[in-house]
């Protein structure tokens, strides 16, 4: 039986893990790193780069390097997050034919699942190299707030990468699993996840193997990269003051500064002082200039204090939303490499009045949780299986633009619920079912997941026909809907496909294109 891997498909970095003899192993890539940058690039000469290689040239080839594609996946082009990404990203984001955002690099417009698939394929390759056997199944994690379309697109990405996605699980759920919070009894856990590009905070309640997200909040545009940017800015300013040279317009210098800033930031989690040395950073009239600047932990903390405070404001709101007090939290779990920073740890501890739970690497904890879930799906024992809940209410648009909730948020999944609806006009022969997800009472303010038309309703006075609409949410959080006219028995059902998702034909086409490309690459390499 082939192995099932757990993948943390992150905004900035991704990680893959597998369970071996009951113990989770986080798999290192060829460079020895346990996390791989979620980056994809096409170089000038058409080479496709993924991971560390893509990151190494991200600034010198910024227009053709994609990062943080997770912010775009499953969203509509007009969504505020997409519009903000367009303003901030050096690469081009264009409107796709399905109203989805597409990323144009190297002369080709890529769908978001296609870009995510390049990262997943890399993670699959890393796992296969380590295990020495092909891998075809995986559990992939997504943020708890991801709606149906975003989950569906993540699943599509897996399919394009040649992976059957056995389960999509929420990141805080995976973190909780990895920390072993699966004991009988009740426990309230705060998962503080400060990744490279995003910040998420979730308050969870665990009770007899059921994990409920009481509240979740975050900022999709705040993360470790903001810390790096502050350090780069500091280095630029210091160098300009001392040498009179502004490096802002020099992509090669910026690439080196960005790499050095990230390294210095990591160093300062373990040391009080570090030095950034970048020889030949610029050419002056009188010869080469070298950059050599010392940074202390105090300086770093002063540079990023407001960013850390911003995360705590979000934490405050989230705890309030959960109806709890900071003191009610039994455990605090830190996720994401940036939480290694002593300032972050002390501020979080100060807020909750307790130190964070230690024992698992914050970069790897989500992938480890996914691997544990993967293993439990294969084994007969389901004792370690946690049950997730749906993060958003699900329902349909009804007469007058109202939103009728059929499944309330935080309902344990899988779940199936039905409701009888009727017509609003005499002799109405068709009804359109608009499936929505969200918490607003007005239908228009929620996310439209998809719609379908049930036709052939027998002619009758308004209010007489009975249409049974039932919703299914599977364990992945993916929705399917069916509608049946109880008088005629006519039924129509769909797996909800919002306009942003890809059709099976499109997915197949992408897979075929990539197979072609892979052949071309190997020939080129010989």
């Amino acid at each position, binding site marked *: 039986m082939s192995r099932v891997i757990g993948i943390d498909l992150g905004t900035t970095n991704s990680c893959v893990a597998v369970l071996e003899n009951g113990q989770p192993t986080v798999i290192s890539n060829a460079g020895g790193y346990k996390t791989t940058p979620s980056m994809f690039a096409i170089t000038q000469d058409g080479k496709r780069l993924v991971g560390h290689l893509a990151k190494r040239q991200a*600034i010198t080839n910024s227009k053709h390097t994609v990062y943080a594609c997770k912010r775009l996946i499953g969203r509509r082009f007009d969504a505020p997050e997409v519009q903000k990404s367009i303003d901030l990203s050096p690469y081009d984001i264009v409107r796709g034919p399905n109203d989805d955002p597409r990323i144009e690099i190297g002369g080709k417009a890529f769908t978001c699942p296609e870009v995510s698939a390049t990262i997943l394929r890399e993670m699959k390759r890393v796992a296969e190299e380590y295990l020495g056997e092909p891998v075809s199944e995986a559990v992939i994690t997504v943020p708890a707030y991801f709606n149906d379309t975003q989950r569906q697109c993540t699943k599509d990405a897996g399919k394009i990468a040649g992976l059957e996605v056995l389960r999509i699980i929420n990141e805080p759920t995976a973190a909780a699993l990895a920390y072993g919070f699966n004991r009988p009894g009740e426990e309230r856990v705060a998962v503080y996840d400060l990744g490279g590009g995003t910040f998420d905070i979730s308050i969870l309640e665990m009770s007899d193997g059921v994990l409920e997200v009481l509240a979740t909040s975050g900022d999709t545009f705040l993360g470790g990269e903001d810390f790096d940017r502050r350090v780069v800015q500091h280095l630029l300013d210091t160098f300009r003051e001392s040498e009179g040279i502004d490096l802002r317009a020099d992509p090669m210098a910026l690439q080196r500064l960005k790499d050095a800033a990230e390294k210095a930031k990591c160093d300062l989690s373990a040391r009080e002082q570090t030095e950034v040395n970048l*020889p030949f950073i610029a050419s002056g009239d009188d010869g*080469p200039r070298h950059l050599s600047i010392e940074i202390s932990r105090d300086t770093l903390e002063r540079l990023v204090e407001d960013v850390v405070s911003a995360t705590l404001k979000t934490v405050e709101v989230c705890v309030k939303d959960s109806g709890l007090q900071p003191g009610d939290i039994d455990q605090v779990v830190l996720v994401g490499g940036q939480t290694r920073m002593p300032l972050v740890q002390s501020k979080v501890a100060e807020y909750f009045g307790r130190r964070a739970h230690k024992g698992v690497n914050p970069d790897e904890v989500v992938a480890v949780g996914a691997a544990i879930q993967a293993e439990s799906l294969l084994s007969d024992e389901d004792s370690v299986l946690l049950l997730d809940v749906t993060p958003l209410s699900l329902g349909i648009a009804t007469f007058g633009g109202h939103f009728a909730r059929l499944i309330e948020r935080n309902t344990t999944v899988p779940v199936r619920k039905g409701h009888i609806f009727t017509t609003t006009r005499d002799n109405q022969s068709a009804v359109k079912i608009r499936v929505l997800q969200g918490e607003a009472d007005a239908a228009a303010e929620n996310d439209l997941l998809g719609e379908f038309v049930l036709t052939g309703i027998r002619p009758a006075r308004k209010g007489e026909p009975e249409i049974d609409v039932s919703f299914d949410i599977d364990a992945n959080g993916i929705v399917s809907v069916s509608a049946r006219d109880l008088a005629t028995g006519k039924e129509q059902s769909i797996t909800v496909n919002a306009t942003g998702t890809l059709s099976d034909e499109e997915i197949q086409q992408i897979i075929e294109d990539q197979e072609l490309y892979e052949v071309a690459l190997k020939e080129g390499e010989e």
Partner: protein
Amino acid sequence: MSAPAARAETWVLEALQSLEKGNPEEALELVESCADGGADLTLEGYRELLRCRVLDHYRSRVPDSACLRRSMEPEKIMQFNLPASAGFLVTMLDGETAIGDVVALSGMETFEAHRILHRLIGAGIAEVVS
């Protein structure tokens, strides 16, 4: 034969002789000095072909799959009067990344990146990992 073509004929011959002697720098200097900075397309055409030939020459000496490493201490390298682009490439020489990848990752023009790398080898700053 047109005047530019006749001029080109002479420097193509000289450039190829320089290459045969294993001196791509001399060939390149000829190429750069003889072209009219884009004003004459015939000369630019020959320039393109010669640049391709010089690139082939570089690759025949050190293939794209080879890896380069720094062959002296950083303090010593810093005594050289290197331009920033060369300094950038020096930092990418880790003994593990193939030349082709270094060139792609640098974001620099392929030809220019190769030219700098070979100058670094010539200056004894970089060496091929055997």
